[in-house]
């Protein structure tokens, strides 16, 4: 199958193309040079007057697995009125903040997104996550594996055996078909199983005698040692607390010089405020991001309206339940992690929510290098991924931003530097934060760009003054060269691929892990590992030190 997308205005930051009129040629699902295509045989799309970008890449979203599905199950009130009917070719679905699997694939594609990373799965439940991902059509995906409260890992750290910890993590990624390692509130989730938490990097993890700092340092070292395509993905300590900006900066300092990704930074950039309302700590945190070269972040921008918070950060969710009085799911997972879910409604008129909104905006505008800051809403925690076009408008349109700012609670306005920030993102910069940047940070060399050899995941938009409208309804979306969306509606739903890594490890570690299984798990070692059982349409992404 050959395809030519001709005469469009192309934004391809990886290849330094900034709105130049270019032709893009596609053969067998890949971008190729114009000589590689017989022009007479190629199907041609006239992109004159249209904006051509690589398909969107979401570096952090919760779309499949036990937490996501529990979020669907316990929010029937979130589904009504959002249903999409089946058609001859497509499945039905429902869900406003936590859409069903097929609908998730359709909605992402209809926005021009073609790669999405599921941001947290317990290895014990990875099989479930992969089964759900198999029912998410169109988009390519991968799953991050939580390791920040893992017993085997903490025991290795306690005994000073870093190499053993490294081999274990390598084995674990292969066994769970994970794409990256994720840390969530290191040590804090284990302490939550005792009704406690951690608040400082040097607090002790009960029963293990290790600290959050040691866990972070070890996992960052492991990420480099294994040459994982994506750096360790960190949700630090104190999320949602007024000490979070301070400990986030301390974490950046302690991991200085290492390759790390800090996720949904908005939730971790608060300072002490008055009368129970945190202050934004975005100015200092953004400065720290600017100062640390190995650091990338995604924002987790708050969107006013209904959301479903879900995270492995068990103590945080219990706190949110107590604060809001909303219903609460908790799930402690043996030897590995925990998790919680609480529905929330973010209001402009709520001073706390308004500060959260402003904090996210400030981070976007104060991090200088767009290659370091990526567009997310930590779906569905700070808002639904379907709000990305609205966030893009806020970044590109200062007048619109001021208008929204004027409507938020006065106490959030009083403390915010937003009115001083004139910056407006360009289309090129939007292409960086929503495609090229996250693809580079994920180490997905065939994603996020339109150079030769790239996957032909291409989103084509009609330029419009209203950028929210523009990005919400692409004219065309191609997935590996196949037309999947026309005028904002799905027209084909090929299965997407699941990316995972398989780093090598000392096979001697397996014997020790087996011994650990006898003591620590209630399922057998042989039934835990997915080695030799590829996820549907699985594809290994090489580690750089394999």
């Amino acid at each position: 199958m050959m395809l030519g997308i001709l005469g469009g205005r192309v934004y391809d930051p990886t290849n330094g193309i900034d709105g130049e009129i270019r032709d893009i040629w596609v053969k067998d699902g890949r971008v190729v040079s114009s000589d590689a295509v017989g022009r007479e045989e190629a199907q041609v799309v006239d992109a004159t007057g249209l904006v051509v970008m690589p398909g969107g890449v979401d570096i952090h979203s919760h779309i499949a697995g036990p937490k996501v599905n529990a979020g669907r199950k316990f929010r029937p009130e979130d589904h009504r009125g959002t249903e999409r009917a089946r058609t001859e070719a497509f499945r039905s679905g429902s869900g406003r903040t936590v859409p069903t699997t097929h609908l998730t694939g359709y909605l992402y594609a209809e926005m021009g997104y073609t790669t999405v990373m599921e941001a947290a799965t317990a290895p014990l439940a990875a099989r479930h996550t992969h089964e759900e991902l198999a029912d998410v059509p169109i988009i390519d995906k991968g799953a991050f594996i939580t390791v920040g409260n893992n017993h085997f890992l903490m025991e290795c750290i306690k005994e000073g055996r870093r190499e053993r910890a490294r081999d274990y993590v390598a084995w674990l990624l292969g066994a769970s078909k994970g794409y990256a390692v994720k840390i969530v509130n290191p040590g804090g989730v284990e302490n939550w199983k005792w009704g406690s938490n951690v608040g400082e990097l040097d607090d002790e993890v009960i029963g293990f005698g290790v600290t959050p700092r040691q866990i972070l340092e070890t996992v960052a070292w492991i990420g480099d040692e294994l040459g994982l395509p994506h750096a360790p993905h960190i949700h630090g300590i104190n999320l949602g607390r007024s000490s979070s900006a301070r400990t986030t900066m301390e974490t950046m300092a302690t991991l200085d010089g290492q390759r790390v990704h800090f996720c949904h930074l908005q939730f971790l950039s608060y300072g002490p405020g008055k009368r129970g309302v945190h202050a934004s700590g975005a100015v200092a945190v953004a400065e720290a991001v600017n100062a640390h070269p190995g650091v990338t972040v995604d924002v987790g921008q708050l969107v006013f309206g209904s959301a479903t918070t879900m995270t492995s950060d068990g103590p945080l969710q219990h706190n949110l339940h107590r604060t809001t009085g909303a219903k609460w799911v908790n799930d402690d997972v043996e030897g590995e992690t925990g998790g919680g879910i609480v529905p929330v409604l973010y209001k402009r008129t709520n001073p706390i929510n308004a500060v959260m909104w402003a904090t996210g905006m400030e981070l976007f505008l104060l991090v200088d290098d767009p290659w370091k800051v990526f567009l997310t809403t930590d779906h569905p925690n700070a808002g639904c991924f379907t709000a990305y076009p609205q966030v893009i408008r806020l970044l590109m349109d200062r007048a619109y931003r001021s208008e929204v700012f004027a409507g938020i609670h006065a106490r959030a306005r009083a403390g915010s530097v937003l009115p001083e920030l004139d910056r407006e993102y360009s289309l090129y910069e939007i292409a960086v934060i929503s495609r090229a940047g996250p693809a580079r940070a994920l180490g997905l060399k065939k994603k996020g760009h339109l150079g030769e050899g790239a996957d032909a995941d291409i989103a084509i938009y009609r330029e419009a003054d209203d950028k929210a409208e523009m990005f919400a309804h692409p004219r065309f979306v191609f997935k590996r060269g196949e037309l999947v969306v026309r005028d904002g509606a799905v027209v084909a739903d090929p299965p997407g691929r699941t990316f995972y890594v398989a780093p090598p490890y000392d096979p001697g570690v397996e014997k020790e892990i087996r011994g650990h299984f006898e003591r620590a798990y209630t399922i057998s070692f042989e039934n835990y590992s997915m080695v030799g059982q590829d996820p549907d349409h699985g594809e290994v992404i090489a580690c750089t030190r394999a």
Partner: protein
Amino acid sequence: MSTTVEHVACTFCGCVCDDIAVEFEGTRVVRLRSACGVGRGVIDEHDPEVRPPLVGGREVRWEEAVEAAAAILDQADSPLIYGLSSSAVEAQRKAVELADRLGAIIDTTSSVCHGPTGLAMQAVGEATCTLGEVRDRADLIVFWGCNPSASHPRHFNRFSLTPKGALTPNGRSDRTVFAIDVRPTGSTKQADHFLQVDVGADFEVLTTLRSLVKGNDVGAVASVGGIPVDRLRDLVDRMKDCRYGVVFMGMGLTMSRGRHLNVSELFSLVSELNEYARFSVIPMRGHGNVAGADQVLTWASGYPFAVSYARGYPQFGPGEFTAVDVLARGEADAALIVASDPVAHFPRAAAEHLERIPTIVLDPTPSLTAAIAQVVFPTAYYGLDAAGTAYRMDNVPIPLRRVFPSERPTDEEILDRMIEAVT
């Protein structure tokens, strides 16, 4: 020459014990290791031999049976798909796809066991944990309206009563165990404390416990629901003082007066206890993969059971789209039953309607429903004849192995062919 397959998961009950070794010659089991009496019976009695499908009691080719089933489903205005809890995730995915395609009502055995538990979870949430956390941490266990010694025979030894864990090195003596039930059972005998509640009075007892936890004055009553208030006070003190408490709850709460209100009250109690200690609740799911049926239907439709696709999109309606109600009201005009025996278990009005309408059955074992069905597919037994996945009662996914070299088609294969065949 015998063959042994290790790490086999038994799908009979929600424990999904995956440490079983099956040694067999041909199709005959010669030795079983680790299985309980019930699992032993299931595996011993299993006959992996291929049997032909039946249409109207007549043996036919598989293609013919698929065509007959597709014709029934095509002609129906309001087909019902029911069962699923003893099948594998792979087949459950296909069943939901077929329901979506047909505009059918789809319901699982959840609706006659832990459906009310799902409604309670939707109302107030659920603080829960995996069974390994129970084994390793829990020092206070409460069994409420369940009888694992009969229904989940290895539960006590693997998870909840006697095993040694990280923080429970002495096993049984590190745990304080309460049982709350309407009568003495094999399980209540194992408990340190048995509180016998009057039939239908669970809600009152639960409300009283919540009140005591909050330190409210419950008045001058001597007992609630047949249990002396002093004993409830003692339970509350222990609940607040424990390290990690876990309540296992069963159909004594879900299928007695109050149903989902009982469970909501219990789930609220457990949530509130997390102010004082760590506390979790685990529903004692019955069938081997009923938890998987909840999961699959939820990820595809947004709802765990009682889903109608009649309008072209999923609608949730317990009492409206639950199989017993749909059948008893005579609303379904065809039924597809997967790995379940509603004729044996449903109320008479519902079972009788099933006999009146054309019914299709996919089941590895003969059943009363298969006996009245128009079309019967003797499919593979997941976990013995075919590989797949089942979700344990705590939602941990466990792979099922193919033990016997059986050639029986799976539920997934048959459902997939039906999806192809229906118009």
